[in-house]
């Protein structure tokens, strides 16, 4: 599956590289667009030294870790957003007659690596924040784990949102509320949000495991909401459960496909 994805993505990349100027511009603009979010964080911290108990480098650390995952998943899986167009136009038929997973074909469809600019931006922010924070080396191992966990969570969210569109083909925007909303939510420490909201995104939709719970461990902080300590390490399990749910939903969605049109 990974191999098929990579080979197809490479073919699409070569096709996109036929227009090098447009390609380079998109990378640069992606970088600029992501810079707006960092700009906002910097403006906020121009007015205060601490936001809901967290310092500027701590917030930038949380932002960077979450956004590496968000941007790269947006790049690799985000094309699934177009599923409602494929369903409405009946072009999903073409995916079903090929000997490869419909999920791989949908997510890789029209793949362009132009969002790499945003990933790069998040990597820089994370690097700068970590240099400022001086995280003890015993806890650094959690950083790659949390980014991988976050990738699985975001990919599952996108897949769930895509599967939902087999049922309600009219509302792709609702799906954005979950995917992009999840990305937006994880830009700030969860201590800024209300207790009920945080409870919801910890125990119902496991968004708290994108960067908040593991991030607390890396930063050596206690949870202001007082959740039990083992939750800091529960991310991979939560991501796995969500991924299973997403896979199941996708299968059900494809079975419901009715191939409208002639």
């Amino acid at each position, binding site marked *: 599956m990974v191999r098929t994805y990579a080979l197809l993505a490479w073919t699409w990349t070569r096709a996109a590289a036929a227009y090098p*100027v*447009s390609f380079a*511009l*998109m990378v640069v*603009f*992606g970088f*600029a*667009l992501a*810079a*707006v979010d960092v*700009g*906002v964080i910097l*403006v*906020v911290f*121009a*007015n*205060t030294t*601490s*936001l*809901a108990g967290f310092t500027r480098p701590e917030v930038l650390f949380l932002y960077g870790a979450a956004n590496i995952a968000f941007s790269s998943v947006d790049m690799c899986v985000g094309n699934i957003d177009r599923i409602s167009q494929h369903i409405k136009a009946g072009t999903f038929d073409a995916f079903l007659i090929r000997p490869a997973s419909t999920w791989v074909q949908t997510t890789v469809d029209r793949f362009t690596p132009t969002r790499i600019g945003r990933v790069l931006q998040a990597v820089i922010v994370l690097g700068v924040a970590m240099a400022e924070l001086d995280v003890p080396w015993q806890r650094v191992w959690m950083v790659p784990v949390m980014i991988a966990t976050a990738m699985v969570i975001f990919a599952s969210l996108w897949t769930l949102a895509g599967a939902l569109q087999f049922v*309600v083909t*009219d*509302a*792709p*925007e*609702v799906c*954005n*509320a979950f995917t992009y*909303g999840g990305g*937006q*939510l994880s830009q*700030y420490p969860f*201590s*800024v*949000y*209300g207790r009920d*909201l945080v409870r919801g995104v910890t125990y119902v939709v496991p968004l708290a495991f994108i960067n908040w719970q593991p991030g607390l461990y890396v930063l050596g902080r206690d949870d202001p909401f007082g959740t039990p300590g083992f939750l800091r390490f529960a991310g991979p399990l939560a991501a796995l459960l969500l991924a299973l749910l997403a896979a199941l939903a996708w299968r059900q969605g494809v079975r419901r496909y009715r191939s409208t049109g002639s």
Partner: protein
Amino acid sequence: MWAAVAGAFTNSVFGILRAYVLIALWQARPGLAGYDVIDAVTFCFITQAFIGPMQLFGGGLTIPERIRSGDIALDLVRPASLQACSLAEDLGRAAYLLLVRGIPPTMLGALMFGIVFPTGAGQWAAFLASFLLAVLVSFAWRYLVALSVCWLTDDRGIATVSLVLTTFFSGMMVPLSIFPGWLGDLASALPWAAMVQVPADVYLGKADLADALAFQALWAAVLLGLGALATHAIRHKVVIQGG
């Protein structure tokens, strides 16, 4: 219909997330920029209602597609000006989007967090005037961006630049009044301030009304004037070069 409900839902989700960040900031710095917490929350939800009618994330106008397909030639030979026709269409859509996508998230914000409302008819009228001018400025800007497709081969670049400028310099993300030093002065003099920051301040009663309306009217006149020049230029281009 479903699309409108979905849009209102999305606007609400993002509004709530933004409100929490602003609340946290105003808890750390009570009275920052002359707002109290409730003013900051009001600012958040009132500006959230601007997204639809002012198309702050870009789009709305069909001009780029019409330029690419060549249909623009048909629009240009009509007796009515392209700019006036597009404006009429845009105002109609703005009214619709304000109702279905703008007001529900604001009401939700009022229920969840509590927001302030203008005191008396005078302030409502002032806000209405400022809001209309803001829609006008937003249209004039988007019209310029849309026409630029005529001279550029790839319109995604200019659309992204517009998106960055609009979201950051309008006050859409955080109020311009908390931008530090010269950045704050610069931001509040640029046209994007006339779209979001100024009408929100008029709503909150934090702005000198005459100054605010004059500032918006000035930018509306400048941008609409540039739009008229650009319309003239593309008519010339289409007529001479045949599209």
